[in-house]
């Protein structure tokens, strides 16, 4: 690694940083686009359909429909890029990026593998090294910013349906952010720190010798609240009120087409990836391998990937299982169920800690 770095006239630290940024973000983007395929094929299988299988690479290999991704990409690139006449052009252009970038950079603090030492330097497998002072507050804050993308997209298109979608997204965000933050707060409290590295290392070991010491087994209620809120946060069914295809056309992205639309769609899937990485980190021990106190680095990366992709799949799975909510039901669930539940979770664990458990 040092050799490669010196070849590129960089210090190993900078080289490592650049490599991490490139690898992590391109991996997330790749996974996000592959997940559009998983979503389509998976939903097809769930509903006893077949899903996209017609597009063929070089008119020969359908590769299980994966070449549909390529076809879609090409199609999006060559589509006419329409901007409505009365739209706010600048914001209309900006919105997809506002949606896409926060969805992606939320991933930055999440450790995707165990640290390793090579040549006297410790390499951390997360884009931002632990101890940066932001910790897990950062993805939460970024998640809050992500709604601006939706809202700006909605507002700038100057379309009634879009604005309705945007308003709903922001309202849902406000109501679910609280429950989610309280659930995460409980984890910070029991861990004694909010750095993802601390949260993960606190989840090593075993619980009663039979279960891995993951937060899910300590705080199942917190997990349910957090996971539900993640659905609201990523604007996915059953909480897809920003889009609401059955009632407000396509919500915030009604006016979007071509590459801008695909960026918005990609933002949704990147958000999904970040959300599942967060769930894996907070409640399922991140890169920890069950019953293995000191896993090899590769195994830890694999473990993290498996967990993350599993939760990404659960997002898809739930989407095609549960019917959508009505808007007032969403609000009721947010304020009358999620908030008290996470409040109770917080107080309960505070009480347990005060009893010295």
């Amino acid at each position: 690694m040092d050799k490669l770095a010196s070849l590129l006239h960089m210090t190993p630290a900078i080289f490592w940083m650049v490599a991490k940024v490139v690898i992590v973000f391109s991996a997330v983007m790749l996974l996000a686009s592959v997940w559009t395929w998983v979503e389509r094929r998976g939903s097809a299988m769930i509903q006893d359909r077949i899903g996209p299988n017609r597009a063929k690479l070089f008119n020969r290999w359908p590769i299980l429909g994966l070449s549909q991704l390529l076809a879609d990409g090409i199609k999006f690139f060559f589509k006419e890029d329409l901007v409505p006449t009365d739209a706010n052009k600048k914001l209309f252009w900006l919105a997809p990026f506002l949606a896409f970038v926060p969805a992606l950079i939320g991933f930055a603090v999440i450790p995707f593998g165990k640290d390793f030492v090579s040549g006297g330097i410790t390499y951390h497998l997360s884009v931002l090294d632990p101890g940066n002072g932001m910790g897990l507050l950062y993805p939460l804050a970024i998640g809050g910013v992500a709604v601006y993308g939706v809202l700006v997209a909605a507002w700038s298109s100057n379309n009634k349906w879009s604005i309705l979608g945007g308003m709903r997204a922001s309202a849902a965000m406000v109501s679910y952010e609280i429950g989610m933050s309280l659930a995460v707060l409980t984890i910070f409290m029991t861990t004694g720190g909010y750095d993802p590295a601390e949260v993960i290392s606190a989840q090593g070991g075993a619980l009663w010798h039979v279960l891995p010491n993951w937060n899910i087994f300590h705080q199942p209620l917190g997990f349910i609240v957090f996971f539900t809120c993640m659905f609201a946060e990523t604007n996915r069914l059953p909480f897809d009120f920003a889009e609401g295809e059955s009632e407000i056309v396509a919500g915030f992205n009604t006016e979007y087409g071509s590459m801008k639309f695909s960026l918005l769609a990609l933002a949704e899937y990147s958000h999904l990836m970040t959300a599942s990485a967060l769930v894996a980190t907070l409640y399922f021990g991140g890169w920890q391998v069950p019953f293995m106190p000191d896993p090899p680095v590769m195994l830890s990366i694999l473990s993290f990937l498996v967990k993350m992709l599993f939760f990404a799949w659960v997002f898809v799975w739930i989407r095609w299982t549960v019917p959508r909510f009505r808007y007032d039901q969403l609000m009721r669930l947010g304020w009358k169920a999620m908030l008290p539940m996470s409040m109770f979770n917080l107080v309960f664990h505070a009480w347990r800690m005060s009893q010295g458990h």
Partner: protein
Amino acid sequence: MGVVVKKVELSWLDRTYVWPVAKGMAITFRHFIKQLFTPTSKRYTIQYPDMKKEMPDGYRGLHELKRFEDGAIKCVACFMCQEACPARCISIEAEEFSDLNITQGFEEKRPAKFSIDMLRCIYCGMCEEACPKDAIWLRKDYEVAAYDRLSMNYGKWELMNTYAEADGKERISQDNTPSVPRRTIAL
């Protein structure tokens, strides 16, 4: 009159919402696995251009004008089908012919032109019912399409050959009996 809607009392387990969702997920997962391990040929979806649905008996598809074994047309140009057709899409021009033979019995009339406008046809099967000679059948071909309107007007020879490939019969494109005015023949 008001209708009393019976409210379903949910058990506490169902009201948690988490348990029913888990049950639903189990169901969808079962479908997922089942569909995943079913070979494409056995799935519900028929992959149309590659696979075709076998139509049930009694299906009313594209018409065929039947022929005798020697290739002579069965139709005697009686105009029954034209009369019966609710869509008025059959048009027939009759002609006389002679040189009778055994298979044709004593018919002496046949269509010189017989055309069905497939764009107007509603595949009701009335022509088949009306035909006294069992000369027109609606069979199982449902792929009736063309690039222009004119070629959707099936003529006599097209109608006689619609199922030639499917049945392994040879295509015919002319009457095997010469049309000689009857009165020239001395019976």
